[in-house]
């Protein structure tokens, strides 16, 4: 039983990473009908930006002898990195996707792949092949609750992720931008005639998705503080699986599927040897998709024709 609860805690942590990244895929898909295959690499860029911000803040604190505790630096790092990474997303939309908006979907798909490769190898060229280690901003505190080991970092990761997801949910359901995004997921023809500029909402969607990926990147770096240019590849693909499993374009589905993915992975390691993890986990997902090809919340409308 204790082991079971312990696994749940770990699954929640991994699920948070997948869910935060999957949201970015889903948001972009729901309004532009394309998967931004560079999204996993935006997660990587976000981690590096977080690394840069954290290092700079630590340097400043040391240089001016500021009495800033680590957790304040962490919060500032998350906010600043999310903000800066959102510009990376907007830039990618502007140069990569906007010129191809009316192009065949396959062209837009390879655009994503190419941007991904450029981000990975660009990073390699710029910073070299050496792995970076993310500064330890806060100490790990372990405590025991009823036989389960919790760390302050695990709690932080799950709480921050859930908070960001709730904020996103409110934003999409209640704010005018969110409503414009939802409207855009149905058509590009009526929406502009309501005075809404598609060229504002599309970059905003990329910005928010990228910000969430940056948050995921920093949270991930808290738990696994090793950065390398290809860190976003496998994680990105897995989050993409979560986005599809949740139902293309469904925000709630992406979040839930992200957590489900975490659970399936962690629990397959509980039962089988750890080398079997992905084999088991993704076979299960194949099976789920066989019965629910549209994912959990996939609707027929997401396959509609778009002018």
């Amino acid at each position, binding site marked *: 039983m204790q082991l079971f609860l312990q696994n749940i805690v770990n699954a929640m942590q991994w699920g948070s990473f997948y869910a935060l990244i999957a949201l970015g895929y889903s948001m972009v898909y729901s309004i532009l009908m394309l998967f931004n295959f560079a999204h996993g690499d935006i997660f990587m860029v976000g981690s590096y930006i977080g690394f840069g911000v954290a290092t700079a803040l630590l340097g400043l604190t040391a240089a001016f002898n500021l009495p800033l505790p680590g957790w304040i630096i962490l919060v500032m790092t998350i906010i600043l990195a999310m903000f800066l990474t959102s510009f990376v997303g907007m830039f990618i939309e502007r140069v990569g996707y906007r010129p191809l908006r009316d192009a065949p979907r396959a062209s837009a798909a390879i655009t994503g792949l190419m941007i991904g490769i450029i981000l990975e190898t660009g990073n390699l060229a710029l910073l070299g092949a050496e792995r970076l280690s993310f500064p330890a901003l806060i100490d790990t505190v372990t405590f025991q609750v009823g036989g389960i080991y919790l760390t302050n970092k695990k709690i932080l990761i799950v709480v921050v992720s859930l908070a960001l997801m709730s904020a996103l949910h*409110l934003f999409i359901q209640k704010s*005018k931008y969110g409503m414009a995004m939802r409207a855009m997921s149905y*058509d590009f023809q009526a929406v*502009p*005639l*309501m005075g809404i*500029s598609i060229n504002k909402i599309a970059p*905003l969607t990329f910005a928010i998705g990228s910000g969430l990926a940056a948050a995921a990147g920093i949270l991930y770096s808290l738990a696994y503080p090793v950065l390398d240019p290809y860190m976003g590849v496998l994680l990105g693909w897995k989050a993409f699986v979560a986005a599809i499993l949740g139902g293309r374009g469904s925000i709630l589905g992406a979040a839930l599927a992200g957590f489900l993915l975490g659970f399936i992975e962690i629990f397959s390691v509980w039962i089988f040897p750890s080398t079997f993890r992905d084999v088991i986990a993704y076979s299960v997902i194949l099976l789920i998709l066989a019965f629910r090809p549209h994912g959990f919340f996939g609707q027929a409308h997401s396959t509609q024709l778009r002018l």
Partner: protein
Amino acid sequence: MALLRVDNMTHFFGGLRAVHNYNLVLEPGHIVGLIGPNGAGKTTVFNLITGIHTPTSGNIELSGHNLIGRRPHETAALGLGRTFQNLLLWRHMNVLEHVKTACYSQLEYGLFGAFFGTPKRHREEKRITAKALHLLETFEVSEFRDRLVTNLPYGVQRRVEMARAMATNPKVLFLDEPTAGMTPDELNRMIAIIRDIHKQFEVAILLIEHRLKFVMELCERIQTLVFGEIIAEGAPEEIRNNPQVIEAYLGREDVT
């Protein structure tokens, strides 16, 4: 001075001449009908004026503003509102959300407000919700405010689409076949509603319609478009008796 003025508008789709030398003078508060057989270019005229396509040549002015080359969200901001022949509604959004989304540019708060829920945002949301509810009442769809449009009868969906178009505060409203697929009951209701909003909001209307009863009853002036060209323009009685119109458009059909 005319509110909306279109001079010699011509448009080609590749080699196909879709609209040829189209002219329109729409005075404030007038209702003009655009009739013509299928494929005559009526919807293209709407698309050209609202900026979905840019005409190959010609001039369009809305209360002194040149509309050529403006994108749809800009023409909307200048005062053009429209509905669509095939109902472009957002199926899984509710009725109130449709109307509120159309108030996008009237909601005066920015991204900061949207993310952090400032008092200003709450004030603005409240103001616009009140406006939206009033529009729902005008279009007699209040009872459906929280229903997803995909579950509503066709006639109701048409009225929701009109409420959404009116929410943008248009000076000119374009209605693309507002009674398509409607029952005779709904048709009469629609006539009453259009009269009502025309009076209440002092909006000028250009409407495409196939049901001549509807056009004859509502419009001060009617244009007949055939193969992209206006073959006749005038008061309803003139159009009804125009032999060219009868031949080209009405054929042997009884005009009532």
